[in-house]
């Protein structure tokens, strides 16, 4: 298998983009990634999208969006794994390059969620849970994560304020991200006084409904070292050090431990082994904080904190910018927004910016290794990637 590098990234401002169509949102991000990579074509494209059918009434997105690129009859593939669709689309692009099938591939994600009303959006999102044995009984996604939160609080003593501190931190990070949907800061009191959605979770514990897209371009590391085009000539290279994917039971109730993300732990274990590093080597991580409790459970499953100790991480500053292991410098899903299919790719964009040293006000100093974790449903699918900064000239390829 060949080593793979990310050579270009693109993303537009996220939010309620009523004036833009699903296809235009995607194409903007895709073209930006292609321009950033300095290439004039891609050999294939992958797009992560959870539910074009329910959100905009459009399926067959591989073909439709490949056409929008204007690069001829290239293979276009749509990948679906609920909220992990974007991360999984990226993984398919990496595998295609690593296997030698393609040399330069676009990996992207898109979701347009505000063409439908809140009820329809809630329904579309709920299709990521077990329709027959969970949703039948009136449970929602906030409700499922609320049930996980309640177990975590009951067993480990995690407090309501500790949940709120995750939102406070991620909105503070997002205030430094000009593409984030919400760029205002919040206080723990505001989170704890916001309207209840599913006890104990409140509206400010939840990621929002968002329109948005993100795209990256991958190529073989050897080809990336030879490329001189675009803005990339002077930049460090970003190598994909590991790509891993794991699954867990679809229904939350089928898990032995209701507040342990088994698929995340498994994917992380595989990724650390492939990359040849442990969690202590990471400079930062971007994780799937669809709800505040999710970030707490994810950092435990990634081995960044002890099992059951995730609650205090945000409040203590451990996971804030400037802390030992910054989590979600982009603002996370909480502040940046969560256009479900695009989320996993936007995480990778943030990792690339950090490793290139292009993250401006939210830059993690001297970042060398970064990890992204993107999950679907209540964690039934998880994709983990580890990225490494490689200075140009390293390995003797630079001319």
């Amino acid at each position: 298998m060949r080593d793979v590098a990310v050579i270009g990234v693109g993303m537009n401002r996220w939010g309620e983009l009523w004036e833009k169509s699903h296809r235009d949102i995607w194409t903007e991000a895709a073209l930006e990634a292609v321009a950033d990579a300095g290439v004039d074509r891609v050999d294939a494209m992958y797009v992560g999208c959870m539910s074009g059918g329910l959100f905009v009434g459009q399926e067959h997105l591989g073909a439709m969006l490949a056409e929008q690129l204007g690069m001829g009859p290239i293979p276009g593939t749509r990948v679906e794994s609920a909220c992990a669709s974007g991360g999984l689309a990226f993984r398919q692009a990496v595998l295609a390059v690593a296997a030698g099938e393609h040399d330069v591939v676009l990996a992207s994600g898109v979701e347009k969620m505000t063409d439908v009303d809140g009820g329809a959006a809630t329904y579309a999102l709920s299709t990521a849970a077990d329709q027959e044995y969970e949703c039948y009984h009136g449970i929602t996604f906030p409700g499922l994560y609320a049930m996980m939160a309640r177990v975590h609080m009951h067993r480990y003593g995690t407090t309501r304020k500790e949940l709120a501190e995750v939102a406070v931190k991620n909105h503070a990070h997002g205030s430094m991200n000009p593409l984030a949907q919400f760029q205002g800061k919040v206080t723990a009191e505001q989170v704890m006084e916001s309207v209840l959605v599913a006890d104990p979770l409140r509206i400010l514990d939840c990621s929002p409904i968002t329109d948005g897209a993100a795209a990256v371009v991958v190529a073989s590391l050897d080809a990336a070292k030879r490329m001189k085009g675009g803005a990339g000539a002077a930049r460090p290279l970003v190598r994909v050090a590991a790509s891993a994917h794991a699954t867990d039971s679809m229904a939350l109730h089928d898990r032995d431990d209701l507040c342990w993300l088994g698929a995340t732990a498994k994917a992380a274990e595989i990724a650390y082994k492939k990359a040849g590093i442990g969690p202590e080597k990471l400079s930062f991580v971007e994780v799937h904080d669809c709800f505040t409790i999710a970030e707490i459970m994810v950092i435990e499953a990634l081995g960044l904190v002890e099992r059951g100790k995730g609650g205090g991480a945000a409040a203590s500053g451990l996971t804030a910018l400037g802390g030992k292991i910054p989590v979600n410098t982009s603002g996370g899903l909480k502040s940046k927004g969560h256009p479900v299919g695009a989320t996993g790719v936007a995480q990778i964009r943030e990792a690339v910016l950090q490793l290139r040293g292009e993250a401006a006000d939210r830059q993690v100093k001297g970042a060398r290794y970064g990890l992204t974790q993107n999950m679907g449903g209540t964690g039934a699918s998880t994709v983990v990637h580890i990225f490494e900064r490689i200075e140009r000239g390293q390995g003797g390829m630079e001319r």
Partner: protein
Amino acid sequence: MIGSPRYWREIPQRYRYEAAECTKCGKIFFPPRLVCSGCRGGEFKKVTLPLDGTIETFTVIRVAPSGFGDEAPYAVGIVKLTNGVKVTAQIVDCAPGEIAIGDPVRLEFRRVRQDGESGVICYGYKFVRTAR
């Protein structure tokens, strides 16, 4: 939307709580499956879920999905039955504020939801608390 074929197909589970027990390793599946995730065995015998269990976790739904709009707020929980099987269902006949993890509950047959104005009226199980 729940179509009639699906609703009819799920009647053994919704009305009669039928589960499947692996004849090789004894693991119980609700709903029944074709392959045992414990031992990969493929033979099962039909068993009925016990009615009693305890609350493992719960929430109170304030923003309800379609089909449940008139009922919010309502409680939904995960209940561990006496045979170890866990199921998700509503917890009813009590104020949501009274519910606690570990509460004993009993499964009852109730109306669960209605699909749209002229849709199927769906029945199934809900839990009621029994004496602590």
